[in-house]
């Protein structure tokens, strides 16, 4: 029973990671950029969502507002930060991205205060359901549901729609896609839009889950998200999902059983290093 509960905890964490990391994978797949600044998109979504919820009293409004704000910020970062330096070595974009993250995190602190903000009426947080001796609150359930729904929707988009097929064609071979009349630049904007909206929704969900939205809440995504997409095989969407769930479960057991030896981050990265030493291309990556 105890082990089953730890597994459940790990899978919920895994869904949270998946929501946070999917956008990173999309950006990496298309542009080969380690988009650390995704963390600020995530945090902005959480802040705007929280302000909307506290103002309107509705969580639905919170999600819409968070998604819109995040969806606006991501493409802007692409336009003004990445686009001009796409032809530079990859670390240039990485350092620029880190710069955006540091500046924006501090911007959030100046704008919204250092203490963080809490939802005034976080009904999902206090509503709990018990079954088979395990208890979950409504945010956790929504986290799992949202992850499954959005990720399935994304899979359908990528395989069944014209836009999705164009997107995949661009990812695998941009010049070829261009020769077929696909606007590569348009696909990049759409890509950033999707990645950012996902991050914004994840931000609101994580904000609800912690009942706390704070300037540095994105730092988890900034480093663990990178670990997850690398673990999954860089640019592989199914790989990211598998890696997220695997990491969630490893952390769930690890934080209890390796407690005396390593902390949570170290457990996650030990797992990453061990996997990469055995499979240098990541869990589902191709050589």
């Amino acid at each position: 029973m105890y082990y089953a509960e730890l597994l459940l905890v790990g899978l919920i964490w895994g869904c949270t990671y998946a929501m946070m990391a999917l956008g990173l994978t999309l950006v990496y797949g298309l542009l080969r950029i380690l988009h650390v600044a995704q963390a600020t998109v995530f945090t902005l979504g959480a802040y705007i969502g929280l302000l909307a919820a506290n103002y309107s009293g509705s969580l639905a409004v919170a999600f819409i507002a968070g998604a819109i704000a995040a969806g606006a910020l991501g493409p802007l970062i692409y336009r003004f930060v990445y686009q001009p330096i796409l032809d530079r070595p990859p670390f240039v974009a990485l350092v620029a991205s880190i710069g955006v993250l540091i500046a924006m995190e501090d911007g959030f602190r100046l704008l919204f205060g250092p203490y963080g903000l809490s939802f005034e009426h976080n009904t999902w947080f206090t509503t709990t359901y018990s079954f088979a001796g395990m208890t979950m609150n409504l945010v956790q359930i929504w986290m799992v549901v949202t992850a499954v729904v959005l990720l399935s929707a994304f899979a359908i988009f990528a395989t069944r729609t014209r836009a999705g097929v164009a997107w995949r064609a661009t990812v695998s071979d941009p010049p070829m896609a261009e020769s077929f009349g696909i606007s590569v630049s348009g696909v990049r904007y759409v890509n950033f839009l999707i990645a950012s909206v996902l991050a914004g929704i994840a931000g609101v969900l994580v904000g609800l889950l912690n009942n706390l939205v704070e300037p540095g809440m994105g730092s988890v995504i900034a480093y663990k998200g990178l670990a997850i997409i690398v673990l999954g095989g860089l640019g592989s969407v199914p790989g990211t999902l598998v890696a997220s769930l695997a990491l969630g479960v490893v952390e769930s057991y690890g934080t209890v059983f390796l407690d005396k030896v390593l902390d949570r981050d170290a457990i996650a990265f030990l797992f990453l290093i061990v996997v990469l030493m055995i499979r240098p291309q990541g869990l589902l990556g191709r050589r």
Partner: protein
Amino acid sequence: MDYYVSVATFAALNVILALGLNLISGFCGQVSLGHAAFYGLGAYAAALCSVAGVPFPLAILVGVLVAGIFGIVVGFAALRVREDFLAIVTMGVGFLFLGAVRKQPWLGAEMGIAKIPSPLDKWGYAALAIGAAVALVVLSLHVRRSWMGRAFGAVAQDEDAARTIGIDVAGYKITAFFLGTAAAGLAGGIYAHMTQLIIPDTFNFIQSITILAMVVIGGIGSTIGVVAGAILLTLMPELFRFINDYKLLVYGALLLLVMRFSPGGLAGLLQRLGLRLA
């Protein structure tokens, strides 16, 4: 006066750290996001030795070697994974180091190691740090001119091609990691004795990013540029004390702007200006 001495000492330590990373990333092309771990390894190893009564020079030497030996281990990892994968693995090494130290009672866990004997005074540490920094600058400039530097360049630009012309890519990568991390270990040993207290948080991911920022802002691969970058970023908090509350905002924006408008860093900027003047 004391203030300037201590700022100069920290600037020198940062020059050592940044030049070490530049050897690995700038010269040999191996991205590392975990350089602070080796700074920490050197600090912890030297501190443990000193607390156990080992003479100061020997303690520093042990710090250098321990950092360098772990650097060799990470160098072997660099043979398995490349580029972005390597960047994340080295970042993981940083987290692993910190996560392990935090839990080890014999390393003081979160309390760190305190009461480290301090055999020198301010001036002594300043002289030691600046001397080591100058030595490293000389070494860096020399490596660049030597066949080792050329071989590093070949590995950085195309390691498969380097192999086919007989260059021992693995050997050079490991050498670069050893030299770069040993330098970080030297900085760590000096730091530990100077402040007499080390705690895990000093050697965290942010520290690794800061060292990387020094290298990149200075101009990756350029020794003089990296020295300038390290000094600039050390002075920044000092210069910007008057904007206390906006310091990180300015710092982040600076990283972004340099990358956006001069991806070659300060060195690239000067080169461009030079070309335009010429």
